[in-house]
């Protein structure tokens, strides 16, 4: 069994490496995106203050300070999360408007200094608690998103279209005439793509770190674990789409149906913090959301295994579920 699996694995790796256009595209696209976006978003910030309010929801009638103009108020129910955002200057000030009113200000933040004056004009006796921390660059926040997006496309389209092409060309039918089992074939495809994604992601991580540099406060090993489980989950998702169908249009449509919502809702480009709660909940259906939440928690906040365990568990469970469904519904030939 191992020998058969290795034979298919080796042949698949050769096929990928010799398809230079795909290889080049896989490596170049993310680098160009990161460099391009770092220029686009590297300019001056909009003159807008962002204030976190310790509350489950925002009621503008609850306090006069919430009527201030040019201030974006964001409800943050968890104090620990809110303080982390303040430390990274993702909000300029944090207030608890329940009496007695208290606030936290990042003393390293110029915008925090100004918006503090606004608050004290409205609430002169508010209790001050200073924190410190450098601002997070957008590229630091974006970088896990770019790696995750590259991983998503490679997993879904790389595996989905390859299996579809094999089925349409009759290559799968030919393999079916050998002692190779569906499980062995699918395992070889998963392992081949997983190896490839890990190598490409490692090259991109190292390359972009050397070119631009980025912030990583956590463990690289945890990131590797996250990448392995995330890639497995998305490869298996690609296999479930390609397991049975023979129409390129249908498979292409289904893959687009998966990738576009993930592109928008998984938090590659922007945070869903201000989005309606149901949108945030729906986003957590996608494996990519868990990859990015976990990666940002590790890289930006130095989260450990315990903090990202729910993300890892979700990815592991979905990987197994998608693989089982893919193997069950797999068809060698066009029916």
């Amino acid at each position, binding site marked *: 069994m191992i020998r058969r699996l290795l*034979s298919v694995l080796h042949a698949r790796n050769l*096929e990928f490496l*010799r398809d230079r256009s795909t290889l080049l595209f896989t490596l170049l696209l993310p680098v160009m995106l990161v460099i391009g976006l770092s220029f686009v978003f590297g300019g001056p910030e909009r003159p807008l203050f962002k204030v976190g309010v310790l509350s489950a929801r925002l009621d503008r009638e609850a306090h006069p300070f919430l009527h201030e103009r040019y201030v974006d108020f964001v409800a943050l129910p968890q104090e620990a999360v809110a303080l982390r955002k303040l430390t990274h200057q993702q909000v300029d000030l944090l207030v608890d408007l329940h009496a007695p009113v208290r606030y936290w200000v990042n003393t390293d933040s110029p915008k925090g200094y100004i918006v503090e004056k606004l608050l004290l004009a409205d609430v002169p006796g508010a209790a001050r608690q200073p924190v410190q921390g450098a601002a997070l660059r957008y590229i630091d926040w974006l970088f896990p998103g770019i790696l995750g997006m590259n991983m998503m496309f490679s997993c879904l389209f790389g595996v989905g279209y390859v299996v579809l092409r094999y089925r349409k060309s*009759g*290559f799968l039918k*030919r393999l079916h005439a*050998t*002692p190779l089992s569906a499980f062995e074939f699918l395992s070889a495809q998963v392992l081949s793509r997983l190896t490839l994604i890990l190598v490409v992601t490692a090259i991109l991580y190292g390359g972009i770190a050397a070119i631009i540099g980025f912030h990583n406060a956590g463990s690289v090993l945890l990131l590797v674990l996250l990448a392995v489980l995330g890639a497995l989950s998305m490869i298996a998702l690609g296999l479930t789409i390609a397991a049975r169908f023979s129409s390129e249009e249908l498979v292409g449509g289904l893959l687009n149906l998966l990738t576009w919502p993930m592109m928008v809702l998984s938090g590659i480009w922007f945070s869903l913090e201000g989005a309606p709660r149901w949108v945030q909940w729906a986003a957590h259906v996608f494996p990519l959301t868990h990859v990015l939440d976990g990666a940002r928690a590790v890289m930006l906040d130095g989260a450990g295994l315990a903090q990202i365990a729910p993300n890892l568990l979700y990815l592991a469970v979905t990987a197994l579920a998608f693989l089982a469904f893919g193997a069950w519904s797999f068809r060698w*030939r066009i029916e």
Partner: protein
Amino acid sequence: MSAAILEVRELVKQYPATTAVAGVSFSVPEGSCFGLLGPNGAGKTTTIEIMEGILPPTTGEVRYRGEPLGQRFREEAGILFQKTALQDFLTVRQCLALFRGLYARGLEVEEVIRVCALDKLAARDTRKLSGGQQQRLLLAIALVNDPAVLFLDEPTTGLDPQARRNFWELVQSIKARRKTIILTTHYMEEAEVLCDEIAIMDRGRIIAQGAPQRLLHQHFAEVLLELPRQEFPAAARALPLNIIEASDKVEISTHDVEATLRTLLAAQVPLTHLRIRPANLEDLFLELTGTELRP
């Protein structure tokens, strides 16, 4: 006669709109070459794919060495499909190594390359092979596990005459090694050259079965007189002769050539383009089905 290596029992394959195989039974002796003949749509590819274990039958069964098809059959069968694409970006040698890796036992890759005369092509990308070379590679893949039984589904369709004859020589060398071969074809000459026994299929059933020469002797004690159709007058169709009409010719089956010629001359049928020949398998098919072979 050797014991049967494959037994096909009452095979039926039904699809929603059609019955592709309608109750087919035969057995294949070990070491023989068995041919399934018939036009497209006759059911021969469906039959051979059920025999290969690729398609499940609706009813009936196929037994290999007395047992239902299983892992042993997959290890010991070599298959050349009518159409097969290979994995891109692999050379001939790498492609053979891939398939060799899927079997527990078999020939060394270099030996298969030598047997199938692929030495000069071993390092070539499989996408750059000609039709004949591609078929030789597909045959090599089918031989990589040193199979006891080899399935060849229309192996020479689309090949030029020279490539076809080269392929026949290759199959004959495999026959000489006592391999059992199951062959489907609609080239009658191919069946006459390669097969020890044939079954002619039409509309999902076997309509004749036996050794090619025996079948010809059974059905044709006569010779055939062949005339161009456009030179055969309509009135002559009423003559008391055994006339078989094809699309471009008229054939008259007879064992008294002189008497037949006299009848034709009396009816003023032009004989300038007359051809006299013994019957072949194509004639047998025409005789049995009343239609021409449909390639």
